[in-house]
C-alpha cells in the first residue's frame, strides 16, 4: 500500500478530475479542449487512482474493460459519421439538431460532438489500457 496521504488526496481529487474531463470534452467545440484532452484527463484520474491504490483497484472502479471502452469509443466515432448518409450527405458531414432544454434554452447537439465523445472514450480506454498493463507487469 502506498502513502495514506496520497490515497486521501486521490480520493478527493478523483471526482473533480472526472468532472473536469467532461467539462473539457463538452466545451472543446467552443473553447480549448475537446475529446482528446478530455479523455486524457479522465484517463489521468484513473491513472492517479491506479498509482495511489493499485491497477486492480482502478480497474474495479472503472467497471468496464479498458479495451471495451476503446472499441466502444471507436464505434461511437464511426457511427457519428453515419447519420448524414441518410440525408444524402457525405460521410462525417456535421449534422445538427436543436435540443430544447428544461430551462428554456436551446442546445446545439451535433454529430461532431458525438464524434468528440467517441474520441474521449477511445483516449480514455487507450490510456488506461497502457497504464494498467504496464502497471501490472511484473
Amino acid at each position, binding site marked *: 500500500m*502506498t502513502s495514506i496521504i*496520497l490515497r486521501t488526496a486521490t480520493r478527493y*481529487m478523483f471526482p473533480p*478530475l472526472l468532472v*473536469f474531463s467532461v467539462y*473539457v470534452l463538452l466545451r472543446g467545440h467552443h*473553447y*480549448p*479542449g475537446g475529446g482528446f*484532452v478530455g479523455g486524457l*484527463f479522465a484517463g*489521468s484520474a484513473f*491513472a*492517479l487512482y491506479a*498509482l*495511489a491504490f493499485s491497477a486492480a483497484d482502478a480497474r474495479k472502479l472503472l467497471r468496464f474493460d479498458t479495451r471495451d471502452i476503446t472499441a466502444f469509443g471507436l464505434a461511437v466515432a464511426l457511427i457519428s459519421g453515419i447519420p448524414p448518409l441518410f440525408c444524402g450527405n457525405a460521410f462525417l458531414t456535421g449534422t445538427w439538431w436543436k435540443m430544447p432544454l428544461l430551462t428554456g434554452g436551446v442546445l446545439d447537439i451535433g454529430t461532431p460532438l458525438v464524434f468528440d465523445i467517441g474520441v474521449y472514450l477511445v483516449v480514455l480506454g487507450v490510456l488506461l489500457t497502457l497504464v494498467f498493463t504496464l502497471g501490472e507487469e511484473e
Partner: protein
Amino acid sequence: MVEFVCPIVMLMLIVSFGAAFVRVVIGPTLPDRVVALDMAATIVVALILTHCVQSGSSYYIPAAISIALLSFIGTVALALYISKGGPS
C-alpha cells in the same frame, strides 16, 4: 503599466524556468531532478497565466490547469518509481 510589467515578469519566469532546468540536469540525485521538473511545471503554469494577462485572452487557462494537475500525477509516478528502488 501591465503591458510594461508583463514582459519583465515573463523574463523572470523564463529565467526561472531555465534555472529549474539546470537543476534537472545537474541533479545529482533522481529526486532532485524530479523536484526541479515539478518546479519547472509550476513555472510553466505561471508563464501561461502571465501570457493570458499579456494577450488579454483567457483561452490558455485550461492549459495551465492541465499542467497543474498532470504534473502532480507525473511527480507521483516518479516518486513511486524512486521509492520502489527504480534506478536512474
